[in-house]
C-alpha cells in the first residue's frame, strides 16, 4: 500500500465555529460563545483513492464535508485543489464557486430529502448538466447525456426513470439519481456524506459497490463519511477518525480498524457489533471503559478532548493538546494521543 497517487483536494487547518445565540444574561456580557464544530482538520483526497472519515454523530464529520464542498464559509484554514488555494470567499453563488463545484461534488446522506419532491429525475439531471455546460446542443445530445448518466449509475433503461418523481423511486434508486447528479459535473472529487446509512441493509452494498466501481472507472477521489467503522474497512483505502471536532487517528484502513491506536478508536471498534462474538446473550458486552458521553462543543475540554472519558488519561492530557504522533506500525498510521509520544522519539 505504498502507491500514492496525486493529491486532488487538500484541507489545511480547516476550522468551523458556529455562533451560538446569546441568551439571558449573556446578552450583556462581551463573551461570544461558539460551537467548535470542526477544529484544525487536515486531510488529503487522492485520485482513485477512497478516504473514510469515521465518527459519531455530532463529531463534526458532516461539517467537514460541507466545508470541503464550500457550502459553509470557513472560520479559518485553507482548501487546496491541485495544490492551489481554491477557497471561495463567500459561500453563496458566484462564478468562482461554480468553477469549484465543477471539480468537487457532494452526495448527501438522505436520498429522501436530497431530491426536490416537486421535480422529476429529468429536471434534476438536466439542471446539473446545464449548469456545468455539459448538456450539449439540442434535444438529442441532452437526451444521450442523460441516458449516459443514468447508465453510469446502473439505472437502465433511462426512459423508465427520467420522468419519475422522487417519491416514485425506492431509496436505493434515489441515491443512484443523487450520485448521477453529482457525476453530471464530471467532478474529480466526490464527497459522500453517509451515502448508505439511510438505505436498507440489503441494498447498501449495491450503492457502495457502485461508488467503488465509479472510483476505478473515473479515477475519482472519494471522501467517504460514515459512522460505521466496519464499512470503512470494507470500502476505504485510508481511514481517519474524528472525535468532538478533531481528528484523532489516521492511517490505512486495515491498520486503523485492526490495530486501533487512539483510545477513542479502540472504544469505537470495541463497541461495534460483532457477530463472531456469539455468546447467546451478549456476555462479552461486560466491560466498563469509556463511559459517558461526548463533551459539549461550546466549552470543549482543554487538552485532549477525549480525556474525560479516557481510561489511560494522564495529567498532560488535561492541559496540552496532543499533536499527531506516528504510531510506528505502518508508515502512514498516526494518532493524536500522548500515549504515542515516545514512539515518535
Amino acid at each position, binding site marked *: 500500500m505504498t502507491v500514492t497517487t496525486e493529491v486532488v483536494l487538500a484541507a489545511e487547518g480547516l476550522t468551523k465555529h458556529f455562533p451560538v445565540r446569546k441568551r439571558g444574561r449573556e446578552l450583556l456580557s462581551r463573551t461570544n460563545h461558539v460551537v467548535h464544530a470542526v477544529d484544525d482538520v487536515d486531510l488529503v483526497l487522492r485520485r482513485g483513492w477512497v478516504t473514510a472519515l469515521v465518527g459519531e454523530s455530532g463529531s463534526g464529520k458532516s461539517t467537514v464535508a*460541507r466545508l470541503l*464542498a464550500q*457550502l459553509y464559509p470557513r472560520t479559518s484554514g485553507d482548501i487546496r485543489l491541485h495544490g492551489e488555494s481554491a477557497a471561495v470567499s463567500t459561500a*453563496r*453563488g458566484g462564478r468562482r*464557486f*461554480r468553477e469549484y*463545484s*465543477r471539480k468537487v*461534488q*457532494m452526495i*448527501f*446522506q*438522505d436520498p429522501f*430529502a*436530497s*431530491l*426536490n*419532491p*416537486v*421535480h422529476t429525475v429529468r429536471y434534476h439531471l438536466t*439542471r*446539473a448538466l446545464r*449548469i*456545468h455546460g455539459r448538456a450539449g446542443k439540442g434535444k438529442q445530445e441532452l437526451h444521450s447525456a442523460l441516458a449516459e448518466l443514468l447508465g453510469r449509475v446502473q439505472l437502465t433503461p433511462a426512459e423508465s426513470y427520467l420522468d419519475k*418523481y422522487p*417519491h*416514485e423511486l425506492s431509496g436505493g434508486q434515489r441515491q443512484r439519481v*443523487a450520485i448521477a*447528479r*453529482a457525476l*453530471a*459535473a464530471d467532478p474529480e472529487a466526490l464527497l459522500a456524506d453517509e451515502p448508505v446509512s439511510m438505505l436498507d441493509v440489503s441494498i447498501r452494498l449495491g450503492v457502495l459497490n457502485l461508488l467503488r466501481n465509479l472510483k476505478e472507472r473515473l479515477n475519482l477521489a472519494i471522501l467517504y463519511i460514515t459512522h460505521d467503522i466496519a464499512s470503512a474497512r470494507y470500502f476505504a483505502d485510508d481511514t481517519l477518525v474524528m472525535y468532538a471536532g478533531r481528528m484523532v487517528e489516521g492511517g490505512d484502513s486495515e491498520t486503523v480498524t485492526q490495530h486501533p491506536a487512539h483510545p477513542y478508536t479502540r472504544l469505537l471498534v470495541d463497541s461495534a457489533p460483532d457477530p463472531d462474538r456469539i455468546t447467546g446473550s451478549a456476555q462479552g458486552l461486560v466491560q466498563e471503559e469509556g463511559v459517558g458521553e461526548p463533551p459539549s462543543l461550546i466549552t470543549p475540554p482543554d487538552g485532549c478532548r477525549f480525556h474525560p472519558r479516557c481510561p489511560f488519561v494522564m495529567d498532560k492530557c488535561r492541559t496540552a493538546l496532543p499533536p499527531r504522533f506516528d504510531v510506528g506500525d505502518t508508515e502512514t498510521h498516526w494518532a493524536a494521543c500522548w500515549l504515542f509520544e515516545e514512539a515518535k522519539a
Partner: protein
Amino acid sequence: MAITGVGITTPNVAPADPAQTATRRRHGLHRLLVNGKVTSGLVMLGVLTLIAVFGQALAPFDPSKRSSDILQSPSLKHWFGTTHIGQDIFSQVLVGTRSVMFVGFTAGLVATIIGVVIGVTSGYLSGSAAEGLSAISNVFIVIPALPLIIIITNVVPNSGDWTIALVIGFTSWAWGARLLRAQTLSLRRRDFVEAARATGESTWRIIGFEILPNLTAIIASSFIGTVMFAVATEIALAFVGISGISEWNWGEILFWAQGQQALPQGAWWWFVPVGLCIALLGTALSLVNFGIDEFVNPRLRASGQSTVKASDGSRVRMKVGFTPVLADPSRSKEIGI
C-alpha cells in the same frame, strides 16, 4: 448448502396472491382535486364568480331604481323582496357580488404577493435584514387590523373598491408572510436545497425553482385566508358606512337595511339573503382551505371508514391506542388488495 429436495409433500399452502397491477399513484394537483371539500368549495366559488361577472346582466332590475313596490316580502317578481324605496334586493345582491369578489381577490392577491416576497426573503436570507422583515410582519400581526384599516380608509380620499382592496391588501399580508417564513426556514435546511447549491445553482434559481414550488399549498392557503378576511372587512366597512356609496356591494345592502330599521319592521328579507350569501362565500373558501390543510398535513385526512366490526360483534371506532380486531378472521380468504 443449497439442498434441492423438491417434491416431498406440498404443505397446506395458502393460495397465491394474484399478480398485482401497479397501484396508480396520485399526486399533486390531481390528489388535491379528488378531495371532496376542495371540489365543492371550488364549485361554489365558481358559481359566485360567474355571478360577479354576469350579475349586472342577470339582474332583473336596476338595483338603484326606485319603484312603487315598497318594502315587499319575497315574491316571484322580487325574489328577495324590496327596500323602503322599492329597490329590488335580488338585483342588488347580484350586482353587489362583483365588488365583494373584486375586493376580496384583489386584496388577497396584493397581500399574497407582499407576503411571499417578505416571507420567503426573510426565511431564506439570514442576518439583520431578515430579522427586521420578520419583526415588521409580527408587528402587523399584533396591531388590530380592522381599526387600522378603518382609520386609513377614513383618511384616504376617494375610497372606491380599488382603494379599499389596496388598503386591505397592504395591511393584511403579515399572516401569510409569517407562515411562509417559517416554512422557508425549514425548507432552507432541507438537503435538496443544499444539494442544489452544491450542484452550483444560483440563489435566485434556488428560491424560484427549488423553494417556491414547495410552498404552493401554503401560498394558496394564505391567499384564501386573506380573501376571507378582505371580504369580511369590506362588508364591515360598507356596513358601518365608511367606504364610498358609489358601487353596490353586500355590505351596503346591510347598511341601508340597518339604517332603515329593517329588522324591527320585520323586513327580514333585507338581511337574511345577503347574510347567507356572505356565509356561502365564507364556507366555500373555508372548504378549499380545509382541503389544502388535509393535503399538507396527511394526519388530518379522514381515513374513510371510521368504524369497524370488532371480534365481539360490536362496532368499534378506529382510534389510536386500541387497534381493532376484525370480526371475521377467515384465514383462508386472503384479502384481495
